[in-house]
């Protein structure tokens, strides 16, 4: 149990996906203009990360490792993640229209998100078991959601400030993210 908590905190705060590893920057900068959109996006990314890591964890531990073909992980994971997100979208669309409309375009948008592939490859790299893999994906997703909500709150306030014309939009957002990243370096000695 101790090691599971370590993995969870490690993926959420210390090795945060966006600020430490610089994965998943597309949705981080693209969807963080309003807090409501940011919450939806974070929830969708967490969902996809957990589902993807559970499926790929099974494949890694029970197919790739016994046959000693771990080098195939990248291509197989891409295939599996794409198919999985498509299946999840079909299920949600047919069973619960309200939820589908709430998530909107975000669900297909994160199929190619590098953070999702990153979580699965990190699980493979660290040789996590299935449960450890799922907990690490959960931590990564929650860390991503936390970051995108903080970023959108700061950006909403920044809209009212007097930014120089050439820095408006993406440039100032990158600088804000750099400050956040510096701040989160303080978590380095947490565990």
């Amino acid at each position, binding site marked *: 149990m101790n090691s599971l908590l370590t993995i969870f905190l490690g993926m959420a705060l210390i090795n945060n996906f966006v600020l430490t590893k610089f994965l998943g920057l597309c949705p981080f900068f693209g969807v963080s203009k309003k807090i409501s959109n940011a919450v939806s996006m974070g929830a969708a990314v967490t969902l996809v990360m957990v589902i993807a890591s559970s499926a790929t964890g099974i*494949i890694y531990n029970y197919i790739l490792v016994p046959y000693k*073909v771990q080098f*195939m992980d990248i291509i197989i994971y891409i*295939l*599996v993640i794409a198919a999985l997100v498509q299946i999840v979208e*079909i299920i949600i669309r*047919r069973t619960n*229209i309200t939820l589908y409309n709430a998530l909107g375009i975000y669900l297909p948008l994160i199929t190619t998100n590098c953070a999702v592939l990153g979580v699965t490859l990190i699980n493979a790299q660290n040789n996590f078991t299935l449960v450890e893999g799922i907990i690490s994906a959960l931590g990564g997703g929650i860390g991503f959601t936390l970051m995108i909500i903080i970023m959108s709150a700061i950006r909403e306030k920044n809209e009212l400030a007097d930014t120089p014309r050439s820095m408006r939009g993406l440039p100032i957002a990158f600088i804000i993210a750099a400050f956040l990243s510096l701040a989160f370096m303080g978590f380095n000695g947490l565990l």
Partner: protein
Amino acid sequence: MWIPIAILSAIGVICGIAIWVTNRTLPPEPASLKKAEEVSGKLPGMNCGACGFPGCFAYAQGLSKDKNVFFSNTCSTVLQDQNMLSGLEKILNLTIDKSAMEKKAVIGCNGNSETIGLYLGIGSCKSANKILKGFKTCPYGCLGIGDCIKVCPQNAIKINIDKKIAVVDPEKCNGCGLCVKECPRKIIKLVPADAELVFLCSYESAKDIPGREKCDFGCIRCRKCVKVCENNAISWDREKLIPEIDYSTNLECDASVKACPTKVLKKYPVAK
């Protein structure tokens, strides 16, 4: 060598079968969704939210359930585009009278009101309005910072630098009404698109008749416009003490426009 190929092909085939199975076993799309997709093909897809629905697809769903939603929550972009309008009329079996429904936004301020000081706060009309009721001497004037500009989906509003107010371009405006909700002083109004006259002053307090104290360029209540007008297009509102234009008849009154001493009454569309 064969093992990796076999594993990759097997996983690929399993993924394909899984998608096919999911597609077949789950209940099919509800029929209303198909109609909503057809309707949303005729909508602009801007997702501006002016209709009151959260996005164009939600509007299409509302329309597919009840076609009269178009009259209670009108999409002004559709109203201006003939292709979309006729397509929508065909799919929903509606008859839409375009000229009766089109509206344009007008900001009720003639500008040039004096300021009581330099404003260095948050760059938003809402914030400026909360401090001492704004930084202009007239409490009903346009502050000119531009909250309305930020919400306009058509980019129809611009700041007039000489007069220091925001002005709506009647050609680009489609009357969606987002700016009306956004203005903290509530001085933006919707007028019919074929209106002949507009009145550019929003001073409302009946007791506090300003004369020339608050603003040199607003209405001074001389009532010349009402006296000179022959066809009853303008009448005097006794409660608010401002002239009231009758938009239902839409008659023009060039004599009143010329007679107004502060040029607050103008012909619409306002010439640039």
